[in-house]
């Protein structure tokens, strides 16, 4: 499953961050590393971007970028 498919209110564990270059590193550096828990809190009014809760802070990500992150839903 990809992070952009995570429904609001659901929690998942990151398996892998795909993609390449600086964007991938930025995603990692913002704390989206493998084995990290993420909660999807919300989708923006126009359907994109999404709002995540990760490492005790709130992060927004475009669905296109979230697509690069493999996750496993846990609850």
């Amino acid at each position: 499953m990809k992070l952009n498919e995570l429904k609001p209110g659901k929690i998942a564990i990151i398996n892998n961050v795909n993609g390449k270059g600086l964007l991938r590193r930025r995603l990692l550096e913002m704390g989206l590393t493998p084995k990290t828990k993420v909660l999807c809190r919300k989708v923006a009014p126009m359907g994109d971007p999404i709002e995540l809760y990760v490492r005790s802070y709130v992060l927004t990500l475009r669905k296109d970028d979230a697509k690069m992150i493999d996750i496993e839903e846990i609850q």
Partner: protein
Amino acid sequence: MTTIALIGNQNSGKTTLFNALTGSNQHVGNFPGVTVEQKKGKIKKHTSFEVVDLPGIYSLSPYTMEEIVAIDYLLDEKPDIILNIVDATNIERNLYLTMQLIELQIPMIIALNMMDEVISSGNCIDIEGLEKQLGTRVIPISAYKEEGIEDLIESIIELSKNPLTKKIDLCHGEIHKAIHSISHLIEDNAKNIDYPVKYCATKVIEDDEKTIKRLNLDENQLHIIHHIIENMEQKEGTDKDVALVEMRYNEIERICSLTVFKEQETTEQIRSEKIDKILTHKYLGIPIFIVIMLLVFFLTFNVLGEPLQNLLEQFVDFVTASIIDLLESYHVASWLISLLQDGVFTGVGSVLSFLPLIVILFFFLSILEDSGYMARVAFVMDKMLRKIGLSGKSFVPMLIGFGCSVPAIMATRTLSSQRDRKMTIILTPFMSCSAKLPIYGMIISAFFSTKAAFAMITIYLIGIFTAIVSALLLKATVFPGDPVPFVMELPAYRIPTLKSVLIHMWEKAKDFIKKAFTIIFLASMLIWFLQSFNFQFEMVADSSQSILAFLGAKISWLFKPLGFDDWRLSTALITGITAKESVVSTLSVLTNTTTAVALNQSLQGLLNPASAFAFLTFTVLYMPCVAAFAASKRELQSLKEAILIAIFQTGMAYIFAFIVYRICLLMI
């Protein structure tokens, strides 16, 4: 002089701390060669300590212009002390930058901000434990409440007397071995350019071209490094990028598990989630945003701006009249009186007339920014702007453009990417500003009085449409590539401090007066001169004999394809560059009309409905007034770019006015 580099994540309270440390002893400049703002200030009562405010960044990767500036400053300017501000309520991600800063081997102090929020929420951080783990002093503070600032200053002074960096190794495993092997290998190269070796080693692993080039590594070294990295990746079972980031986060997690005792989210975070249930609500989010912006607009341009502008105008008029009276009583030469009255005071007046708008607008904008709402605007509006190659953050400056381009262009400073900033500066003037309303009023009442509302809406839509077309054009040519990815934090809502709002307001006002005064002033004087003299340098009684009228006549043929080639119209367009509303006054002077009805009649002689609409289109789109031009020169730090942009805008105006004229001819 001891130099202290203040560095931290965005939203960590860095600006608030900078203000608390330096008070009003601030200088705003730029980092050499780039348009990133640099603030410097001396610490209150300890003026031999200078704080340099580095851009708010999340890591030392060369990802944005701000990060490159910060890295270059730390490596090349070699500050004596790094003051790293860390948001205690969001400590894990904030410490990521700290981990990288430690590699620089520069004496460092950590200001652990928002500790008051941590404690009041029933959570706790073991400060001594954290100091031991990180090998640096950690001072708990609240920049907002100005608590702990004295302690912080004391420990800065202490550290400056005894500048030590403790060597601690914050890594382990295979990546640790790789860093150490590479460090050994490149030690001499790093010493040659006086860079910290461990920092270089991680940059080499990250494949950072700039560092690798500077280190001047030979073939053999590169080959060995390649081998070391490959070996490490194989043993770790992951690639080098993940390995490096994970190494730092693993260490952070270990440190936090020992020192951070967190029962629950902070009160502020819980409150923010509740506020966002409304402000970024699926259906309410956008209407609420529109209402907030309308309110800001209404208050700025109507309730507060207009009376203040009128008051200032009366004041300037009063001063002008008194001085002119005085001069006349001494029988001073009439050209000098005209120079003062129509050149100097008109110039000063037009500069000052922007001031109330700027001050009031930035009062509201800093509240929206400091409270955390701007980040939500970007979140809500992002999808719309992405289609034209921008991000949600550009929405607010563009919206302000409907009021006035000057503060709108100044507001682009909050955009984090240079590319987005430039594009926004180019597009904002296409949003029809309020100074153009008198022109619309004039033309519409003369030609389209039966369809006034429709004509008005069409004009605004033409502006927006041109902006979209220009954005797509620019995206395809001048600014290729993707917009900076939108990986943005939504900070917790906080009540802004009056102090930081006032400082921000004051800075914008000062900035505008200082930078815009010369350009606006010179332009007004030039127009005055051209309008009042003929080629024999004699003052003319009738401005139709002036140099300006001659120039207007000279270029009027240019507008023939657009349907209006009367010299009076082209002359009015030239004066419109000083201030858009002058188009109306110039036209009434040149057509010798004193009443609106008479002006209507003479306009009907000059234009037909099709060319009138082309004229309108041209006035909406062509280069903005000198004040806006000055603002864009200031923000871009380049006269050349500002001129190029003005040419681009005028070019777009010409093309669109031509198209509109042809379409109108077919329809009418």
